[in-house]
Each structure stands twice: as C-alpha cells, then as structure tokens.
C-alpha cells in the first residue's frame, strides 16, 4: 500500500538523483555541451523539488527561465565559441585537487552545522496550508517589494545593454 509519505520520499529520491547526478555531470563531463545538458537535467530536478514543495509558480518559472532561456543562452554561447568544441582539452585546472578537498570540507562543515541548528519549523497546521496563490505573490510583489520589482527591470535593462555592447560584432 502506497502511502503519501512514501510517494513523496520516492519522488524526492528520484529528483535528488537527477539533481545531484546532473550536478556531478556538470562538473565532471569533459564535453562542455554535455556539461550544459547535465545542467539542464539538474535544473529540471530542481523544478521537481519546487513542485514537491508546493511552489508551483516557482517551479514553472524555473522551467521557463532556466531550462527555456538560460540553458539556451549557455548552449548558444558554447556553440559560438567553436574552439571549445574542436579542441579536446583538459577541463580541470591544476588546483582541482585542492578545490576538491576544500569543497569536501565545506560540505562536511555544512552538514554538521545544518544538523546542529534547531530550525524553528512552523506548526503542523501552517505546514499543511501554505500560502501559495500567485495572486498573493503579485500583491506582495507590487506592495512591499515594489522597489526591488522596479529595480529588477532596471537591472535587466543594464544587463541587456552591457551584453549587447559586448557581444556585438563591430
């Protein structure tokens, strides 16, 4: 008999395999194109996480922005720098082993620290009925977070202008 929790854990495990496996692929693959595809896999896993966490809007946004837009951008950039694809080269620099050690240390420290904290988890009732409507999101976004909301458009404009200046063939 499948209980709700078992399904959730099963889905969680599958998503984790996707996400972390994808992440591992990103950092270990020798072919940059494959790296980028692994990134997509990993990000789709994150989409699943968001869906599992009842953040439906974010899940779709993640799919739209990361998979639909950023991944395409990255793939374009990879294809545009053709030298990368032709030359088979070592993908790791010489400090990779130090990096690996340090990162492992970071991971252990994080696990220990995260385990020690007593997280103020909300009560059962609140956990069961999270505040998820997109309309409420919009109200918050245009209310208290109005300034960041406007600033993000300025940021994007700046990024676009900068990127066009940089990427244009003159």
């Amino acid at each position, binding site marked *: 008999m499948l209980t709700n929790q078992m399904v959730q854990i099963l889905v969680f495990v599958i998503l984790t395999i996707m996400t972390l496996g994808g992440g591992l692929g990103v950092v270990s693959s020798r072919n940059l194109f494959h790296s980028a595809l692994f990134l997509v896999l990993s990000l789709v896993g994150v989409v699943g996480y968001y869906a599992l966490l009842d953040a439906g809007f974010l899940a779709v946004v993640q799919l739209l922005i990361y998979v639909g837009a950023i991944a395409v951008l990255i793939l374009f950039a990879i294809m545009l720098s053709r030298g990368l694809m032709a030359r088979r080269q070592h993908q790791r620099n010489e*400090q990779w082993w130090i990096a690996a050690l*340090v990162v492992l240390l970071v991971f252990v420290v994080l696990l220990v620290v995260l385990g020690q904290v007593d997280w103020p988890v909300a009560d059962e009732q609140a956990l069961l009925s999270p505040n998820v409507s997109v309309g409420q999101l919009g109200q918050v976004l245009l209310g208290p977070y109005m300034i960041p909301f406007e600033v993000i458009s300025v940021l994007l404009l700046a990024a676009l202008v900068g990127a066009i200046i940089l990427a244009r063939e003159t």
Partner: protein
Amino acid sequence: MGFFFNLTPFVPLFPLLAFAVIILFTHRNNRLSSNIAIGGITLSTVIAWGIVAATIAGGERTRTEGWQLSIPWLPAGTSVLDIGLAVDGLSAAMLFMVPFVCLMIFIYSQGYMNLGKANQDPRYARFFAYMSLFAAGMLGLVVARDLLFAFISWEVMGLCSYLLIGFWSFRNRNTEDHIDEAQVDRAKKAGLKAFITTGIGDVLLLAGIALLYSYTGTLTFRELFQPETLAALQQQTLLGMPAVTVIALLIFGGAVGKSAQFPLHVWLPDAMEGPTPVSALIHAATMVAAGVYLVARTMPLFIAGFDYTSAPALYWVAIIGAITVLLGATIGLAQDDIKRVLAYSTISQLGYRMMGLGLGGVVVGIVHLLTHAFFKALLFLGAGSVIHGMEHGHHAMSHHAPGDLAESREDESFNANDMKQMGGLRHRMPRTVWPYLFGTLALVGLAPFAGFWSKDEILGEAFVGWQHTLAIDHHLLVWLAGTVGVFLTALYMGRQLALVFWGRPRHQAAAQAHESPNSRTVPLMILAGFALVGGFANAPFLGSPLHHFMADIHQASHLVNVAATEFNFVVAGMSTILAVTGLLAGWLLYRNYQAGQVEPFKRYLGPVFTVLERKYYIDEFYQLAIVQPVVWLADQVFNFDYRWVIDPFVNLVAAIGRWAADISGVFDSVAIDTFLVEGVARAFNAAGRWLRYTQTGRVQNYLLVVVVTVLMLVGLYLYL
C-alpha cells in the same frame, strides 16, 4: 482660498517638469526651452502667491497648523518611509520670495545668455534646465514636511550648484572668443569646490538626520517638535551632551556648508565663476537661503532643554554668525572683482542671519533672508548688467578702432569684472545705476530701505538681550560684531559705488559701455521697488506683521523667541550713523581714484590689507592643511603598494633568488657537489613561485582563497 493649498505639490513640480521637458524633449529649441522654464516658474509663483494669500486669509490656525500631505513613498519590505509636503507661516513667507526672485532671475537670464544672438551660449537650453531644477530643489525644501524630503531637495540643490557654477567649464571655446583656458579651468575647480565644501556639511546633516531617525523613528517636523519627543531626545546623551544638542549642531553643520558660514564659506566667492544669474540665484533665493531656512525650521531642536538665551547649540550658531559677519565684511573691503565684493557681502549678511537665529529669533533671521534676497538679487543682476555693459564696451572699442584691433584683441589686462577698470558708469548706464543704488542702500541698512528694518531688528534683539544680563556674553558680541559689520558694509559698498559708477572711466571699455536691454533692466527695477518698500512688511511701527505671520509655528514648543523687539532708537541711530559714515568714507576715498594708483585702503592699512586681499589665507590654509595631506596620504598609499612594500617585497624575493643563483654559479664552478646548490636554488625558486601565487591574476585562485578564508572564519566562529 484653501484650494491653493491642494496645489502645493505643483510648486516644486512645475520647475521640475520644466527641467524634465527641456532635458528630454525641447533642448534643441532654445527659445522654447527658456520659455518653458520661465512658464514653469511663473506657474509656481502664481500658485505660491495664492498659497501665501490663503495663509494670510486663513488666520492663525492655518499659519500654525498649516496644511499637510503625506505620501507613502518607499515601501521597504516591512516598513514604509513617508514623504510629505506642508505649508505653514514660515514656508508661506519663503514661498512669497523664492519663486518670485527666481522668476525675475529667469527673465533676466534670457537676455543675459544672449538668446537669439550670435554669441548665444551653446548650452543655452541646458542652462535653463539646470536653473529650473535648482528652483525645484529650493521650492521642495521650502514646502518639505519632513527632513527626508528636505534632504532630497537639499541634495538636488547641491547637484545643481555644481552643474551651474561649473557651467562654463564646458564652454565651447571655438565660438566664445574671449574665453580662455584659465577661465574654463577656474569654472571646473569652482564647481568642484562648491560641491565638496557643501558636501562636508551635507555629510554632517545626513549624520544628524540619521541620528534623529534612530532616536525618534520619525523625520516629520511636526512630530519631532512634539514636547514629548523633544523631552525624550534630551534624555539621551551623546558625546557627553544631550543628544538633541549634538543633532542640532550636526544640522547646523549642514547649514554652515550650504549657507557659507565660517569655516566652510570658501566656496561661495568662487561660485561666481558661473554665469551671473546663477550667482544671483545662489546668493539670493536658493542655495544660501536653504541653510538659514533649515536652521529656522529645526529651531526647537536647537533650543530643546534650554532657554533660548542660553542654549549651547544656539550659542554656537550666534558665534559662527558673528565671526562670519566680520570675516565677510573685512574681506569684502579688499576685493577688486565687482561680483566678489558682493559675494563676500553675502557671506557677511548670512552671518547676520545666523546671528539672528542664534539669538533664538526665527523671525528676524528669516525676515533678513527675505529682504536680503530681494536686494542681493538686485545687486547681482545689476553687477551682471554692468559686466555686460563693460564687455559690450570692450567689444565696441575694438570694433570702432580697426587700427587697434590686433592690439585690443590681445589686451590681456582687460577684465570686465574688475572694478578698478570701471568708473563713471552712471552716465553710460543710467537705468542700471538707480536700482543699483537702491540695492546698495538697502544692503547698507539706511532707512527706509529694506535692509534697515531687518538688520536693525537683529541688532536690537542682541542689544536688548545684552541689556537684560549686562554680562559679557554672546549678545554683546553679536551686537558689537553686527554694528562693526554695518560700518564695514557701508565702507565697501561706498568703495564699490565710487569705483563703478563715479569718477572717470578708468579703462576705454568703461568709456564705451552700453546700457543693457529691457529684459535685464526691468527685473532690476521691479526688484528695486522691493528693496525700497520690502522692509515695511515687518516694520515695528506697523506692528511687525511678519512676526505674527511666522512666529506662531513654533509656539507649540513654547521655546522659541517669537516676540517682536521694540524699535530701539539707540541701536538704529548708531547703525545709521555708522552706515552713513562708512558710505561717505568709502565714496570720498575712492571717488577720485585713478587707474594704476595704489588704492587708498592699501595706503592706510598696509599689510593688513594684503591679508584681507588674500582672504585671511584661509584657502591657502586649507590647501596646506587638508588638501595636500590628503593628496600626500593617497600618494603614500600608492607608494606603499607600488614602490615601497608590496611590489619591492615580491622583487626582493626574486632578487634573493637571483642572488642565490649567482652564488650557486660560483659555488658550482668551485665545488663539485652540484646537488646541494641546485637544491638551494630550487628552494628559493619555489619560495618565489609560492609567494607569487598570491597574485596569480586567476579568478579561481582568488575564489579558492575566499572559500578557504570563509571556512576558517566559520571554524573560528563555531569553535572559539
């Protein structure tokens, strides 16, 4: 009438809109642009005067409680910063003056910037845009309901002063034949100087505002001046003083910068590198008035916890004011540049206002601000007219004498601003001289001109204050400084009149100077009218009406000196005698001054005059004591990095390695055992390489270092 109050936002908004429209859309069409600017300020003036009328009609209640509007402006997560506008008696009084004087100056500017002529300024439209923004800033400050909006307006003004004072640093040298590099350079430096010097004050002001907000959680004037808020502020101590006093002094610091009080006055005389209308705007209606207005507005903070005769913050206001009066007036004696004399006179007159405020007299300070605005705008515009006349004369001179063209073109000694090259202009510029004379008399403080009433009230207040105690305190000091100041003012103005309008022309240009066109002389005449009658608005024998109009606002706090002082014949008589004496002395001494002579003051004062001429060497002192050390420090830091420590160290390591290698070479030839030698060399080499790793230029190395460091910090935090 109350209808006008609801239009208050438009008072600063119209000039702001004019600015936006000019910058964004119409900047290619010069005439349209300046007309938009004038239209904007005209609308502001109309509304502002409507508000003034409404305030007068509204009676006491309107004047004390006024009208206000608040807009939730900056929602930041959970808290919201409000921003708002308010009108009461004090702002209404300012609203009467500011937009109107701005309007006069704008109209004058149209002629001054040579609209439609061949030598029209290449950045004509931009000039009007900046002027509009400047006016918007000042009007915003006047109608501000809280310190936040006041500060924003304040900074807008700071920016505009920078842009306008340095306006001619971009002057197109191809079309402007008489503009030389040095002048462009001076304009640049003057703009920067104004920006940085006032910036010092702004930082203090911002610190004061921040402190105030952290203590009280509000920046709205009305809430701040609630007795309980003030009482709470007195309870806090900061640096061994009541917090409120520290805050008041910080706010005063801002005013010292903006209102050019000693020791931050140095920017104001240089500010006349900008076009003359800018000087008029800065000296009369906007910039320097802002500081005075702010102090008047926040007066309860200065007094809180004390009586207004003994509040320490006020004491310093009075002292600084007194110093500034004497400083400005004495330097003014020794300047040759017509605008510079006026600039120092402004500094001196600002000192008067601060003295008035320092005695707790909000009203007297503001009244002097108002009267001064009219006659100083008049004087500056008059000076501009004179300068233009001189330039015109210079131009005509070279034009009419074709044989001398080459010679006169290279006439390096000619300076249209130099009073010593003028003379006898009363014949050449009959329509400028009378307004100018009116302005002078108002400035000197002769009855019945505007300056008489406002200045005498400050002196009277000081005198009465002294009479109460008969101690040697700041009242006496203020009175003495003010009275001496009256004499000095009369002296330098007498000198100026004699040099500019009397005597014989001391340069060919003066002999051929031309009267200015109507666009310039008409504003002069209007302003002259105000200089003549403006003082009656608060004349004691009319019952000091402005006192009732303005003073009520601070009555809630029961702290501020709002009572009108009785007309004091001793004070008035004394200052009148001194003024007449000074004026006559200056006039007599300089009436017959010839070009090239040693000037009379210099003859009598000798080295003292040189000190005055060099403005007490304050600029030099700042250069020596502040600018150079800062530059030096920057150099040292650079050297530390580049020459002395970091780079040499890296080089040293390399040198040691090389040296060791040299040794090893010798060793090698002598000894057979090369293993050891190579080992040493390798060790040093490795050391050098290792040290160089700290500067690989590779982002990822740096990132790794960052991660490791963070890791170490986390470890420290967790386990220590």
